[in-house]
């Protein structure tokens, strides 16, 4: 199933070539037929590389970065300092530190080394971002990237021995400068292919899952910090390449070349086109480049640019110098207000081609043909590991949420945890899955001690949960949601036979909606998808947090069957929390009743219901009996 050669490799490459052709073609058409400036096209090619680099990080992780141009500055200076001849350097930076004054390397060696330098910096910054708890939309992460931009800029301005300072900068000709566009074309093609292939790769998919819901991704065994780091390094490599080319093409570098202006321009390009789409990033570059040029000309020449001959006088108030800046500002603000996800949102050419091909093929085949997959059969548990929770205690401030709570679940059992609101049921599940640390007690799975492990590690050991308030990867399709956990399972749970995704879709009643986005699903379907996504991890134990909350009685009863079958498909034990007594008694072999953080009863459904302590604490206080 992964990687699907056609979907994840061939089509992205094909789409990349088409996008490259369209972008370059538009540029050549403009400069050839319309008599446009060559330089504008050259700069657009370089901008495209920078914006694609930015897209790889911002688009896939959801973290807004102002720092990428700072990385660009580092790469740009590193490139310039290595590529400029010692004779030239003696004029500007005779005292360059680190023996750089005598270094003279070829442009492409310099470019490669510059990338190494900037990647080392990115690694350090990435560790900082990870430490700060970066996740989609985190303000702290954005401030850290902004800090990088400012610090780089100020270091560049205030370290003239290295950078030539604020006014002079470094200027040079490296072996006659960049006199052919071939390197630019190559760089652009490389950037497009990196962005597309990364987005379809394992890393890209997991990063997007974490972007959509950080916590749910962790609970499915994804470590978002690792995926963000991968995205950062790749994106910085691409940005570094673009920055090096920008310096090469200009033949000079000044601190302000890689500061706020370029940051804003590249960000506007990215958001106008659509930050979640590679095609969008390219479209954004084209639209903004064209718009700026148009605005510049209108500002300069007034309305006559169109050759209509209309005297510009009545429109003088708008067509004047600096219209270009207004255009950028209005584009940024307008898109944020009216279309924050950009022109293309997350539409991408390769996925569109894939969907087209699929539809074309299914039309050719007989619709009555057995395209529906087979129902998966039940499997026996592969081991007899028991999930043991011993003496768990948690207090929040002065409130004792859990006190000496224990639980034991075997691989063929379904165990329920009930209790009134605030009894500590969800806290118990959070402790078991590593979302909340416990003050005392242990959680063990067979021989393995899970206490204190991060939640993605626990998930990879086989404890997989669902959430009380649905946490799906909203922008992904139903199938893609399940594929995320299947992907993690394929590398971390190889000893288990992963369930067939198509079969799982069928059992969960999701086959007909498999290509719908998760956020478009109704409530009951969403619940089933969450369950199926957990099952696709091939877990040893499924932990379900109120799977029937918000469901009608009839729906709850269907859920009983659903849970049993899904658990059977992977041979997993089940721990289920719920308020709904019909559901709990219908599904559970044993029940543990919690009240105010303590276990007050353990036994079969009938035993627990008959227990006077339980009746007093829970049943007596609720109308549900």
């Amino acid at each position: 199933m992964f990687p699907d050669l056609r979907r994840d490799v061939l089509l992205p490459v094909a789409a990349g070539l088409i996008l490259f052709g369209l972008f370059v073609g538009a540029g050549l058409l403009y400069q050839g037929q319309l008599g446009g400036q060559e330089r504008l096209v050259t700069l657009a090619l370089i901008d495209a590389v920078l914006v694609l680099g930015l897209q790889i990080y911002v688009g896939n992780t959801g973290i807004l970065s102002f720092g990428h141009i700072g990385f660009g500055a580092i790469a740009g200076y590193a490139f310039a300092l290595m590529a400029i001849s010692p004779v030239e350097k003696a004029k500007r930076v005779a005292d360059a530190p680190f023996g750089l004054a005598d270094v003279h390397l070829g442009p492409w060696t310099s470019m490669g080394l510059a990338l190494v330098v900037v990647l080392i910096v990115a690694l350090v910054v990435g560790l900082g971002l990870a430490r700060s708890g970066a996740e989609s939309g985190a303000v702290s992460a954005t401030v850290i990237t902004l800090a990088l931009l400012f610090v780089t800029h100020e270091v560049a301005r205030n370290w003239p021995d290295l950078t030539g300072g604020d006014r002079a900068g470094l200027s040079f000709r490296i072996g006659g400068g960049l006199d052919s566009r071939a390197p630019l074309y190559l760089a652009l093609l490389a950037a497009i292919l990196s962005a597309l292939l990364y987005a379809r790769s394992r890393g890209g998919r997991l990063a997007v899952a974490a972007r959509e819901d950080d916590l749910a991704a962790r609970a499915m065994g994804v470590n978002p910090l690792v995926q963000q780091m991968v995205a950062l390094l790749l994106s910085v490599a691409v940005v570094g390449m673009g920055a090096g080319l920008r310096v090469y093409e200009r033949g000079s570098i000044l601190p302000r070349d890689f500061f706020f202006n370029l940051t804003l321009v590249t960000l506007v390009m990215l958001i106008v086109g659509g930050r979640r789409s590679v095609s969008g990033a390219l479209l954004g570059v084209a639209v903004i480049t064209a718009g700026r040029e148009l605005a510049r000309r209108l500002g300069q020449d007034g309305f006559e640019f169109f050759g209509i001959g209309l005297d510009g006088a009545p429109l003088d108030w708008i067509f004047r110098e600096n219209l270009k800046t207004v255009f950028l500002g209005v584009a940024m603000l307008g898109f944020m207000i009216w279309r924050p996800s950009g022109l293309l949102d997350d539409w991408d050419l390769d996925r569109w081609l894939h969907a087209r091909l699929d539809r074309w093929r299914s039309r050719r085949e007989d619709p009555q043909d057995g395209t529906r997959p087979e129902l998966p059969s039940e499997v026996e548990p592969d081991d007899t590991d028991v999930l043991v929770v011993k003496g768990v205690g948690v207090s929040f401030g002065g409130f004792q949420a859990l006190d000496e709570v224990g639980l034991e679940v075997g691989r063929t059992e379904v165990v329920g945890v009930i209790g009134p609101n605030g009894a500590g049921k969800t806290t118990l599940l959070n402790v078991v899955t590593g979302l909340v640390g416990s003050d005392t007690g242990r959680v063990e799975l067979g021989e393995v001690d899970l206490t204190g492990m991060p939640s993605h590690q626990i998930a990879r050991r086989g404890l997989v949960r669902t959430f009380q308030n649905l946490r799906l990867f909203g922008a992904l399709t139903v199938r893609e949601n399940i594929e995320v956990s299947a992907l993690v399972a394929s590398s971390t749970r190889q000893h288990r036979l992963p369930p067939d995704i198509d079969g799982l879709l069928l059992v969960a009643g999701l086959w007909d909606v498999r290509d719908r986005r998760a956020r478009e699903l109704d409530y009951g379907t969403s619940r089933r998808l969450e369950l199926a996504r957990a099952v696709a991890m091939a877990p040893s134990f499924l932990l379900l947090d109120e799977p029937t909350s918000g469901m009608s009685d009839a729906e709850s009863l269907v859920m009983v069957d659903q849970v049993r079958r899904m658990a059977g498909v992977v041979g997993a034990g089940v721990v289920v929390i719920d308020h709904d007594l019909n559901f709990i008694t219908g599904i559970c072999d044993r029940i543990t009743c919690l009240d105010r953080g303590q276990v007050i009863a353990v036994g079969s459904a009938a035993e627990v219901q008959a227990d006077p302590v339980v009746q007093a604490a829970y049943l007596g206080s609720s109308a549900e009996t």
Partner: protein
Amino acid sequence: MVELLQNLIDGLGRGSIYALLALGVAVIFGVMHLLNFAHGELITVSGYAAFWAIEAGWSWTLTVPLVIVVSVLTSLVIERVAFSRVRGADQFTLLLTSFGVHFVVFAIFLLYVSASVKTFARPGWVTDTYALGSLRVEVYDTVVIAITLATLAGTTFVLQRTTFGLSLRAAAADFDTARLMGVRSDSVIRGAFALSGLLAGIASVFWLMRAGSTVPSAGIDPMLKGVLAALIGGLGSLRGAVVGGFALGMAEVLLRSRLPDSIASLTEGVVFLLIALLFIFRPQGLVSVDHAERV
């Protein structure tokens, strides 16, 4: 010792302005979770108002209320035109919307006024000093500190003793719950922008009296100071913002007077770096509003 005292007074003067700006940023973050990178535009706009007023022969006495009114109105207009449309949006949209506002205001002045610096006469007493023991104290600093303290006292009173203040604090603590409790989000948000505009208006009077000029990009510097100070204080914490403002002012004065000239101009980068390090090593301590998510 004398030098340190001198620095202390200078730092208080500078810090006062930053505290007013930071408080405005924190108020907005409280009700909207918006880190307002457009806050400095209030100073840009009122700067041009001051320039035109003084060029038209107004005295500073008349210009001061004008600047404050313009700042409040600008704040309300920006809320109406831009921020009211992205309420409840994700951080990504909020942050870039505020950058967009900054950008548009900048561009409008660039387009319709000019890119060059517009200067206007400063009030004569701004450079006056008087002796206090062996210290030379600027009249300006004294006025700034006194008025800032009065403003902060007034703001505290409004926040603690009025219904609006209670709604605003409730909204800052937990916006959704506050709404459920009957706090009207519209009026609280507008009120917050008016308050933020008022505080920025007072700050911009001080700022302009000292600068005596304005440019389209004049807002960037005060915006950075306000945002940085609010970040130091822990975003969303109103008291923290004021403390952050004074701390930033003090730190700047001390750094500038103690560090050799060649690196003294690094201050902004240094502050940014320190905040980044704080975020990295004490992520819980800095943003007081990012509560743990309920699962």
